[in-house]
C-alpha cells in the first residue's frame, strides 16, 4: 500500500533563516505531488504541485520554492523565512487528476 512521510513534524525557526521540508511517498510510481499550507483556523491552500521530476508549478506568489529531485521526493524550501510563513504545511500525493489526494501528517512551522 502507499504511504506518505513528512518531516519534521514541528519546527521553530527564526526570521531570516532558511527552510527545508521534505516529503516522500512509498508504494507508487510517478505520483502527482502537492504542497498545501493551512493558516490557523482555515482551510488549506495549494502552494505547489508537480507532475514529474523537475516539473514544478506554483499556485501563489510567495517566499517559498519547491523542488522534486526524485520521483517520490518533494521538497519545500525558503532562503529567508518571514513571519508570515508560519503555518501548517501538508504534503499530498495523487495518482491521476480525477483520483483522490492523500495527505501526510503535516509540519507545524513557527517563525519567531
Amino acid at each position: 500500500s502507499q504511504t506518505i512521510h513528512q518531516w519534521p513534524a514541528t519546527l521553530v525557526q527564526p526570521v531570516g533563516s532558511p527552510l527545508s521540508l521534505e516529503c516522500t511517498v512509498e508504494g507508487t510510481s510517478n505520483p502527482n505531488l502537492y504542497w498545501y499550507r493551512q493558516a490557523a483556523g482555515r482551510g488549506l491552500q495549494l502552494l505547489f504541485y508537480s507532475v514529474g521530476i523537475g516539473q514544478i508549478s506554483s499556485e501563489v506568489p510567495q517566499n517559498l520554492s519547491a523542488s522534486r529531485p526524485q520521483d517520490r521526493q518533494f521538497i519545500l524550501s525558503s532562503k529567508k523565512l518571514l513571519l508570515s510563513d508560519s503555518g501548517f504545511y501538508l504534503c499530498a500525493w495523487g495518482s491521476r487528476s480525477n483520483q483522490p489526494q492523500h495527505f501526510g501528517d503535516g509540519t507545524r512551522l513557527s517563525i519567531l
Partner: protein
Amino acid sequence: GIQVEQSPPDLILQEGANSTLRCNFSDSVNNLQWFHQNPWGQLINLFYIPSGTKQNGRLSATTVATERYSLLYISSSQTTDSGVYFCAVKEGAQKLVFGQGTRLTINP
C-alpha cells in the same frame, strides 16, 4: 475560481446524536473529497465522492453534482468524531479547493 462553502461553521452535539454537514460549490466538478482533521492536525480521507452516495460505517455522504452540493452524515456520534470536517473540490487538473470547514464538538 470555484467557491466552496461549508455549513454550519460550528456544531456542538451530545454523544449519540446525528448530524448533517453541508458543502456547496459554485461550479460543476468531477472530484469531491470529504476529510476529517483530527486534533493533532492529521487530515483523514473520509470519502471520494464526485457523485452519488457512499457509506462507511456510521458515516455516509451524498453528492448531487447537478445541484452543486454534497452532504456528510454522521450517525450515533462519538467523542472521537470531534474535529474539523473539510470538503474539497478539484479546480482544473490538479488543484483542490477547500471550504473553511465545519468544527464539530461531541460532548460526552
